[in-house]
Structure formats: C-alpha cells, structure tokens
C-alpha cells in the first residue's frame, strides 16, 4: 500500500469511529448526568431526612423487614448510610435505564442505519462491513465509557459532601454496578442486530430477556428462598457487587467476560451475511391482511397497534406491581415515622400509608402514560420525517383531519390504560382487604388524563411550529417535572417552580375526589395548545429528514 493510500485508509477509519461517537454521545451524556444526578439527590434526601446515627439505624432495621420493597429498588439491607440508601434507590432502576439506552443505541448503529439505507455508502467504501461495524462500535464504546466517567465523577465529587461522605472507590463501584448490565445488553444488541432484519426486532430480542432478568431479580429480592435467582440475572450481579458494605468485585466479572463474547459472536456474523439480510430469515412471500386499510387514520392505527398494546401491558404491569406490594410495604413503613413522612409527602397522604403508596404508584402510572403519549407523538413525527406523510398528503387526505385523528387514537389508548390501571388497583387492593371507593378510583382514572392531555397539547403546538423539536420538547417537559418533583422532596422550592411540574397536578390520593377545577384547566389549556398546533401544521411546509 502506498503512503497516501494508507493515510486515506486511516482517515476513513477515524471517520467511522467518529460517526459512532456522534450518534451516541448525546444520549450518553444525558444518561451519565441522569445517573449521577439521581444517585446524588437520593443520597442527599436520605442524609437530610435521617441526620443522625440513631434515626438511620432505626430506619435500616425497619426496612430489612420489608424485602418486598426491593421489587423495583435494591436489597433492603445496608440502609444505615447515605451511600447504602443511594445504592438501594438507584442501582437497579438506573441499571435498567442504562441497559435500555445501550441496547437501543447499538441496535440503531448496527441495524437501524442499515435498515434506513444509510449504511450502504459506508459499508461499500474501502472498509469491509465488519471493519466498519467494529469502528462504529468503538465509537459507541467511547461514548459508553464517557457516560460512566461522567456519572462516576458526579458521584465522587458529591461524595465529599458531609451528608454523603462516600469514599471515591465506593463511588466508582456504585457507578460500575449501574453501568455493567448496560455493557452486556449493548453487546447482546450487537448480536441480535445480525439476527433480525429490522432494528425494532433486534431491540425486541434483547428487551424481552432484559425485562425477564429484571423480573427474576425482583423475585429474588422478595422471596428469600429464591435468592439464588440473582446468580442468573445481570441485574442480580449488579446487586451482589454490593459496593457499600461488603464489596464483591468478583461479580463484576460475569458481565465483563460475557460482553466481549456476545460482541465477538455478532462481529463474526457480520462478515457472514449479505447486506440488508439477517440470520433469522423472513419469508419473502407474505399473505396480505386487509384490515384497517380504508383510510389514512385506519392505517395510522394499524401501524401503531403494537406500540399501544406494548405500552398498555407495561403500564398495567407497573400498576399491578405497586398495588400488590402496597399492603406489605405500608406495614413495614408504619414502624418508621420518618420514612412514613417521606412516602406520605410523595404519595400525597400522611395519615394513611397504604393510600400514600398507591399515590406513589399513580405517579408511576402517570409517568408511563406521559412517555407513551410522547412515544406516540414521536411516531407521528416519524411519519413526516420519513416521507410517509408525503405519500398520504399527496392523496385526498386533509392534514388537520389526519393529525386530529392520530391524537384521538392516542387519547383513547391512554384513557383506556388509565382506567384499567385504577380498576386493577381497586381490585387488587380489595383482595388485600383494603377497601377503596370504586367511584373515586374511576374519577381518578379520568383525572389522570388531565396531565396527558396538557402534555399532548404542548407537543402538538411544537409539532405545528417547530416539528423537529416536538418530541425532544415533550421529553424535556417530563424530565423537568421529574427533576422538580424529586428536588421538591429534598429542598423547599419556590412555589412557581413547584407548579411548573406536571406531577404537581396528578391526583395521587386514592381516597380523595380529584380536583376537577385543575382537571378542566389542564384540558382547556391542552385543547387550546393543540388547536394552535393543528392550525400551524395545516399551514406549514412538510419537513422531511
């Protein structure tokens, strides 16, 4: 090879590596900051709620008797220190977030780009597809470690606060416990990207085992006899690293060893397949199914059915989970007045802890509904970005009808889920001997929709005037609300800031009739914003990618 040719080769490689970084770094930074922020806030909340050794010990003893709380959180052991509490509250949840982000990113890089036809140019260049994929993955790995470092750095810096007083080595351990499962599921994404021919399926092939592993971990936390299940779950390994009290670095190993194996298998397969093909073959002939093809809106429903059903199942599962542990959890907390006060504040009821737990559950359900609404909006924007909307609007399809119809679908879907959640909660509570008023619960199911309608209206407004920012704007509003809600439980915020959080308007008290004035205001605002958005959409250019 001549010198010029090898220099060119090198620059192509650097370009591919940079491409990988460019497509993952933004997400990585968000994840890194989020992890660090959440952990630190939880630690500080603990430090300020239980300032002295005695109250901490009392809290730790109480919690140990309630392992069921570990379904969503960590093991209810070692809770006598801020760092311990930090691990309990953040490691499993954040490991879940990091894992989902990681798998979505590697499947996007290694299958999504190919599916969109953007990879052809790259793969047809002077590098082989295998080399190109490896370099892009190297870019992702760079971003992934950046995220880890950002989170670790935030934890180390915050560790010097007296409320936290955590050793730097402990902080690094905590960050490692949060990020390791992500590394493994990213690697799994590399492999499934070679198997499936669409990114969606490649992601599903990882997401299903991922949620199963998380479930196994939850079961292991709840049922002492089944503790061994942790050994087979990457999230269990994370728990067992146990960074605070009794660090077990050996549990870092399984993920560290398995990740290169899965990645290697994926990279081996890349060279063995045709461009655009996958190892799980798809029949080229397909039977036609002619349902929901009568109108553009019918098709919109057809194309989004799986999204709606998926979110329904997930949301309902959260709601059922929270309702199921309500009794046990409330009993455990009842013995600790401090924790009771904390949960009571979050759940909107200080005199009945069961109700407070339900309230916290309502917040979860609302978050799920809000994210579902945003994901649906993202699907609307995608129709535009990927030119499908051109196809529709070149036909006799009215813009305003199409958008309003799609919004109607989202509203109906979220309303059904909301109602299903409150009804299942009511039934499960009843089975535990906790009597809730059915009529009140149904009203809450309706009232939960207030925030959803408002957020949708906000999204539609953005979609009408700045379509590229609609989805990011909605996610930002949710994230902002979430941050305010959490900060609000630690420090006293100005009233205006508190009121800027969507969760401020969620009717969380299962024993109280919701405030219909607030609901009507939210709905009116939402409709007004949506109206302006639809009008703007009718008048603007279609903006494709």
């Amino acid at each position, binding site marked *: 090879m001549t010198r010029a040719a090898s220099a060119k080769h090198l620059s192509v490689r650097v370009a591919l590596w940079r491409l990988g970084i460019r497509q993952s770094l933004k997400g990585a930074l968000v994840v890194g900051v989020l992890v660090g922020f959440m952990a630190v806030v939880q630690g500080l909340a603990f430090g300020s709620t239980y300032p002295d050794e005695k109250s901490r010990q009392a809290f730790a003893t109480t919690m140990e008797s309630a392992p069921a709380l570990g379904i969503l959180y960590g093991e209810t052991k070692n809770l006598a220190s801020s760092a311990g509490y930090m691990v309990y509250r953040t490691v499993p949840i954040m490991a879940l977030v990091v894992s989902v982000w990681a798998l979505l990113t590697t499947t996007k890089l290694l299958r999504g780009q190919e599916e969109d036809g953007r990879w052809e140019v790259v793969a047809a260049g002077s590098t082989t597809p295998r080399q190109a994929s490896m370099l892009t993955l190297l870019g992702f790995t760079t971003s992934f470690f950046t995220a880890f470092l950002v989170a670790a750095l935030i934890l180390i810096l915050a560790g010097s606060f007296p409320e936290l007083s955590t050793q730097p080595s402990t902080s690094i351990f905590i960050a490692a416990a949060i990020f390791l499962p992500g590394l493994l599921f990213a690697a799994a994404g590399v492999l499934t990207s070679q198997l499936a*021919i*669409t990114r969606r399926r490649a992601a599903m092939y990882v997401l299903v085992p991922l949620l199963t592993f998380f479930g196994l971990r939850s079961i292991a936390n709840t049922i002492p006899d089944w503790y061994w299940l942790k050994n087979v779950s990457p999230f269990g390994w994370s728990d067992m690293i146990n960074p605070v009290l009794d660090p077990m670095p050996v549990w870092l190993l399984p993920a560290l060893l398995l990740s290169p194996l899965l990645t290697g298998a994926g990279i081996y397969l890349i060279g063995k397949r045709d461009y655009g093909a996958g190892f799980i073959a*798809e029949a*080229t*002939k*397909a*039977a*036609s*199914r*002619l349902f929901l*093809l*009568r*109108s*553009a809106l019918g*098709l919109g429903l057809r*194309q989004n059915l799986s999204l709606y059903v998926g979110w329904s199942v997930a949301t309902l599962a959260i709601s059922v989970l929270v309702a199921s542990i309500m009794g046990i959890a409330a009993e455990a907390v009842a013995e600790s007045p401090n924790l009771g006060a904390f949960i009571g504040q979050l759940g909107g009821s200080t005199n009945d802890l069961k109700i407070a737990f339900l309230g916290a559950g309502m917040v979860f359900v609302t978050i799920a509904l809000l994210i579902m609404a945003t994901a649906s909006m993202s699907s609307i924007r995608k129709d535009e970005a*990927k*030119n*499908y909307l*051109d*196809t*529709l*609007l*070149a*036909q*006799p*399809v*009215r*813009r305003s*009808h199409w958008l309003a119809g799609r919004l109607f679908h989202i509203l109906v879907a979220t309303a059904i889920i909301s109602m299903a959640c409150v009804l299942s909660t009511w039934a499960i509570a009843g089975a535990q001997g906790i009597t809730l008023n059915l009529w009140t619960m149904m009203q809450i199911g309706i009232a939960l929709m207030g925030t959803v309608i408002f957020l949708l209206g906000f999204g539609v407004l953005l979609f009408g005037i700045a379509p590229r920012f609609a989805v990011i704007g909605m996610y930002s509003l949710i994230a902002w609300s979430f941050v305010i809600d959490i900060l609000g439980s630690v420090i006293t915020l100005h009233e205006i800031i508190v009121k800027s959080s969507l969760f401020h308007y969620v009717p969380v008290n299962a024993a109280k009739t919701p405030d219909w004035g607030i609901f009507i205001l939210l709905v009116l605002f939402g409709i007004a914003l949506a109206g302006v958005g639809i009008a703007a959409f009718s*008048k*603007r*250019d*279609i903006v494709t990618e």
Partner: protein
Amino acid sequence: MTAIIETKGLTKRYGNAAALDGLDLTVRKGEVLGYLGPNGAGKTTTIRLLLGLIKPSDGQALLFGEPASADPAGLHKKIAYVPGETSYWPTMTGAETLRFLANIHGSVDHEYEQELIKKFGFDPDKKVRNYSKGNRQKIALIAALASRAELLIFDEPTSGLDPVMAKVFRDEVRAAKQNGQTIFLSSHILEEVEELCDRVAVLRLGRLVEIGTLDELRHLSALTVEASFKATPPDISHVKHVSNIEIRGNRLRCNVNGPISDLLSTLAKAQPVSLLSRKPSLEELFLALYDEDKK
C-alpha cells in the same frame, strides 16, 4: 383550451437561496408537458408546491383553476402523483399498499389495475421492505395509472426501472394521453421526453429557461456542420454566425447559429471532399440549455 396547471410567479425560498424563482407556467388540458432540468434545478420543489406539501414564499399555483393550497385534499381526488423516491410502509405487502392507495384515493379501475400488474410483471405478495427500488416504483406507477386521475404528476418516474419496464411506462402514458388525461412529467430521460411530450419546459437554477415544442427548441439551437478536405481546411474564424470551430487534420467541425450561406461559400472555395450538416441531437440541445455559460 383550459389550463389544468397555472403558476404565476411561483417562488420558494429556503433562507436566501431560491429553490424556485418566479415560475410562470401553464399546462393545458390533455397535453403532456416534459419538465426538465439538471439536478437541483427545482423540479421536485415545483411538484411539492403544486401538491401543497410545501407553501410558496411568493406567487401562486392554480390547479383546475383553484389555488393549490386552498383545499388540497379536494383537488387531490383529481390528481395522481408518482414521486421519484417512493415512501411506502416497509411492513406492508405490495397488495396491501395498492389496496390502501386505491381506498384513500377513492377511484380505481380494478380491471386496469390487474392489467398493469401483469404488464409491469409485478409480484404483489411481498413486503415492501423486500422489493427493489424499481419494484417499489412500480407500486406508485400502478396506483397512479389505475386511478385514471385527470392529472398525472410524475417526478422522474423511471429512474429505477429497466428499459423494458420503461417502455411499458411510456406505452401507458401514451394511452393515458389518448384518454384525455393531462400529464406533467419531470424527467431526465431524453428518449422518454422526445417520445411522449407535446411541450418541454427547461428549468435551471430555479428559473424557467425555455418552454416550447421540441421543434421550436431545436430552432433556437445551432446546426452542426462537418466537412473534410484534401488539404488543410480553410480559415473560417471570420465567417459570420459560426462558433465552436474544431480542426483535426483535414477535418473541420463547427456550429452555425443563423443563415448558413456565408459558411457554405467559404467552404465550397476550398473544395470539400465531404460535407455533412445535421440538427443537434436532443442531448446536445439540453447540454446547451443546461450549460451555465450560455445563459
């Protein structure tokens, strides 16, 4: 004759750059208008403006006498459109896509649709994801032609088709014209334009450079003259109306823009062995029209 498409000063600006700059164009009922121009000339922009997908910065477009953006959905009942790059849902089959397009358009000649599927050799039982670009293009063509819409708008429709299928396309467009349908054909393929179009509009950098029948356009352009001699060709650099002189050995070649008599008498004196004059090929014609230096 009534105008099916009429644009008045139609302009689309992106920032400071004009993708389309003051287009005045009329397409009459029943004619086939060829819309030509190099890449980036503004052809697709024009079509997206006509369809109301984007809004004009200035001027207006009338379709069937109505403003294009007033009630696009109503107008589109009378229009069928084939984009240069189709965007169909990858998980749907060809048959599902055709059924859907027919349903939302509202009019379809089922018999003709089946006939077209046969003529194009299209297999409707695959998922869109598994079709080649040419096959996806066929979906759009079949759906558009089978709708028998009054106005057909094609944006470089044959870019993914092989020559045999391109021929089928030309036959069907001719049949559509016979039916009295109006056709707006943006194209790069000169053969297609020459065979189908009554008139041709040429666009460059967002501006209309020429419009007319092919014969009219040919008159605008030079005649090519080639001659060979026993000895060195004569010096013709001073002869009127002559340009682009090329001399290779005993052969001479030049272009003539205007009366040819001066050149002929000069050449005759030098006793040519052979003399050939011809009209420019379409390709030469369009190269001349596209060429920035000439306009």
